[in-house]
Structures are given as structure tokens and as C-alpha cells.
């Protein structure tokens, strides 16, 4: 199981940038289709909010790859 957790870390590391790429690509297409202020704000908000979350996913993947989730802390002394 620990090996699976580590290997899947690579998937989470890749998933972060892929999500943002897809989001930006869709935003560009939708803004081009309807270039009004509302559309621009809406997509800008989505991108600004999801970029830090995608970075968080990459960090999560990195920790998983490094085996940080092989054992979860069971009390405060382990934190």
C-alpha cells in the first residue's frame, strides 16, 4: 500500500498543472466567445482561486512521493 501511495504521488504532481492548463485554455476560449466584463471577471476569479489549490495538490503529491503519508501521526507528539 505504501508503494501505491508513493507512486500515485506522481499523478497528483501532474494533475495540478494539467488542471490549471485546462482551466486557462477553457477560460481563453470562453472569453473569446463572449468578451464581456462579466465573463472576464468570472474566469479570472476561477483561475486566481484554483492556482493556489493546484499548487497545494502538487505539494500533496510531492509529500506522497516522499513517503510522508506512509504513516499518519497518531498524537500531537508526532506533529
Amino acid at each position, binding site marked *: 500500500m505504501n508503494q501505491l501511495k508513493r507512486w500515485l504521488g506522481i499523478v497528483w504532481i501532474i*494533475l495540478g498543472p494539467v488542471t490549471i492548463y485546462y482551466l486557462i485554455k477553457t477560460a481563453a476560449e470562453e472569453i473569446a466567445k463572449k468578451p464581456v466584463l462579466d465573463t472576464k*471577471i468570472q474566469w479570472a476569479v476561477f483561475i486566481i482561486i484554483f492556482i493556489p489549490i493546484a499548487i497545494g495538490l502538487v505539494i*500533496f503529491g510531492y509529500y506522497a512521493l516522499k513517503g510522508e*503519508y506512509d504513516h499518519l501521526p497518531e*498524537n*500531537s507528539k508526532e*506533529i
Partner: protein
Amino acid sequence: MTKASSSKTIWQVIAASSVGTLIEWYDFYIFGSLATVIASQFFPKTNPTAALLSTLATFAAGFIVRPFGALVFGRLGDLIGRKYTFLLTLILMGGSTFAIGLVPGYATIGFAAPLLVLLLRLLQGLALGGEYGGAATYVAEHAPANKRGYYTSWIQTTATLGLFLSLGVILITRHYLAADLNTSIQRFNDWGWRIPFWVSILLVGVSIYIRLRMNESPLFAKLKTEGRVSTNPLKESFGNKTNLKMVLLALFGATMGQGVVWYTGQFYAQSFLENVCNIDFDQSRTILIWGILLATPFFVVFGGWSDKIGRKWIMLVGMLLAICTYQPIFKQFVALTEPTGRTELASHRKLLEEKTIVSEKNPADSIRLVTSEVHYSDGAVFKEIKADTLFANTALAGAAHSSIKYKDKKLDTGSYRKLVALIFVLILYVTMVYGPIAAFLVELFPTRIRYTSMSLPYHIGNGVFGGLTPFIATLLTTIYVTDKLSGLWYTIIVAAVCLFIGAIYISNRIDPDVND
């Protein structure tokens, strides 16, 4: 905790925490439920700046500000204590809500009106971001280890009951401002919408009184006496790798999926019934009210059950069921509200309005709109709007171009009951993912930084992933126009990723001691 609080005390703690949290949710929801009326009063579409402020009010308060509220008040809660922090969030929320009800409209004070509403809405978002973590932590730190899921699940009911209360107050106010329903609705749209905002101050007053009489959480009080309170909760929560990895796990393995399942079951479902299925305003709300009423006890059932079998699998099974059944359930929503398969009572058809307007596509053409009330043998009544294009070019006159839409659908009793049952199932999934989550989050983090650490993943999961669900889902339906159910893919994908991460990385262990 080392010594469980007495049964009487724990129920007082639950009552004090739940009533306040319920009121905060009520305050937060009435703005959303009255969005159309508020927009007409404060954000006229004809003015682009006002429309911009409207968009910001919707997005900023619900999604961006909530995680900030979690950071600000979470830090405060870990520094000065749970009791005074969530008292502060309550005052902030109640004051902002009451003030929204007092702001004069755009017609009276111009731009100051939308600006004030935006600021007050931001304060609402901040307060909500700080409230939940405090209430959940406060109850969990009073509860005995073997009943932590059960007692904290009472806090979980408040989010749904807050929606129930807001829908109820709005419906009652809308119906009882005059003896005649149309006059009452007219008065509600003019000034009556302010009443649900004013009601808040009474509720908040009662809640503040109750909370003031409560003591500080025993675990936090102990830390304070021993001088072990965190000096920098933000740094300890997010600067410490071991704690940060748990924050990330809580977000990607639990709250992200829980948030989308919650918002799809309660909010996107309501929006879908109203805007895609075009069900009558009152019926779409009473369907939700019944669904909520029947499903709410299950928060406590699943919370209590999680004390016996663990939190993890109850939440993940809820996500799995949602992923597998959302498509067929929403397909049923459409099928139950279609005119197809119904027999019209032709003699009952009533012409409501007939008018001709200029075509938006080609101003030379015109469109004839015929609105009729159509009655069906099963008791359903739909408003039919038939649009015929009258071409200016006589060569096209033979090319008939007409479309029929149905609005304000009043359903027959059978379809209505089936919809209530389906909404009940959706909210049952919400109770599975949401009932045990407070206990789950509390057990992940140590007392000294618990308020800060659990509030952030909760509000990113619920505020961002969950809160954006109705918008992203609606947006997807405008991109993939041929598929009415395309909006569900956002929820299904996010829940599936969360389910996968949760199943592999999260432990099902119940922490026997949160007193650390």
C-alpha cells in the same frame, strides 16, 4: 478529553453552539435566496459598475473571503480562545445581516448602495469562515471520545437547518404581507424582502445571550493555564510540514468531495429544479423544504454511527453513491417535469397573454408570443409560451419558425412526491459526507492549533469547491448546451478524485484522545 462533561453541560454546549451556527447559516443563505430581489434593488443591470459589484458580491463573499475568515478567526480562536472568537463571528454576522436590511436602494442613494451591500456581504463571508471551526471545536472538546461523532453531528445539522429556516421565513413573508397573493408578492419585492434580514437580529440576540453564559472549552482553558497556547498558530499550522501534510490530506481526501456533494444536493438541485426544469417558485422551495426535513435526522444517525465504525468509510460511501447515482437522479428530475406523456385537458386551456415584439436577431423581423395556461389530466398546470417568428422577408414567410417553452410548472401530487423522495436521497448523501466530518477534522489536529488547522481545509473544500458548484455546473451547461446534465461532471470528477485520495491515504482510526 480526560473528563467528559456531564450530560447536561454537553447539551447546553451543543445548544449554544448549534443555535449560533444555525443563525449564521440562515444569515448567509437569505442573501443567496433573495439574490434576484437584491439585484433589482441594489445592482441594476443597466449600470455596468453596479453589475460588476454584484458579481463581486456573489463570488468574493462566498468563495474568496471564507477561507480568509477561517485564517483570521482560526488564529484568534487558537490565541484567545474558542468562546470569545465565535461570539465575535456571531456579532459580526448578525450585525452585517441586519445592516443589509437597512441599506437604502440604488434608486435612493446611488452607488453607495451596492458598495455598502458588497462590504457587508464581505463581512458575512469573513464571519462564516470563522464560525464553523469554532463551533465544531468547542463541541468536540467538550464531548467524550466515544460520542464525539454523535455530538458534533448536531453542529452539522445547522447548515441544512439554516437553509430550511431561510426558505421558510422567505416563503412566509412572501405570502402574508397582504390578503391577496399577488399584492403580497408585490410588497415583498418592494420592501418585504428586508424582513428576513431584520429577523436575524432577534435570533442573534438570543444566541449571544446563550453563548455569553457558556464557559471556555476545557481543553483550551487547560492549555492556557499551563501556558502552552500557541504563539503563532498560522506558522505552526502551515509552516510545519507534518501538520501541513494533514491539512492537505483533509482538503483533498475529505472536504473537497464533501463540499461538492453538499452543494450539489442542496443548491445545484434547487437551481436545476427552478431553472432547467422550470418548476414554480413555491413548489421548488417546498420540495427542498420537505427533503431537508426528512433527511436532517440522518446527520445525527451517521455522526453517531461514525463513533462505532469510523468516520472514513461513511463519508467515502456517501461520495461513491453520489458519483454513481447523480446522473439517473437528475435525469428523473427532467422526466418528471416534462409535458411529454401528460394528457392535456384542451377545454381548460386559458389564454393569458398575446403580444408581438421585435426580434433580437434581426430587428426587421418580429416575434409573436402567446402565453397560455395548460391543464393536464393528472392535475399538473404549466405555463406555455409559444414564440412564432414573423419574417419581414416575405420569401421566408412560409418557413415556419416556432418554439414552445414551459415555465412556472405546478406539478401533480404524484410527481411532486417523487421529486421530494429524490431530493431526500440527495440530502441523505449530504448527511453521509457531512455528518461525521467535524469529528474527523477535530481528530486530525492538536488542540493548540486545531481551530486554525481545521478551518482552512473546511472552508476551501466547502467555500471554494462546494460554493462554486452551482456556478461551474451552470457554466458547463452553457458550454455543452445539448446535454442538460453536463453540469454534474464537475461534481462527479471532484468527488471521484477525493474518493480515490481518501480511500488510499486516509486512516479510519478514531482518535481516542483529542486532549493533546
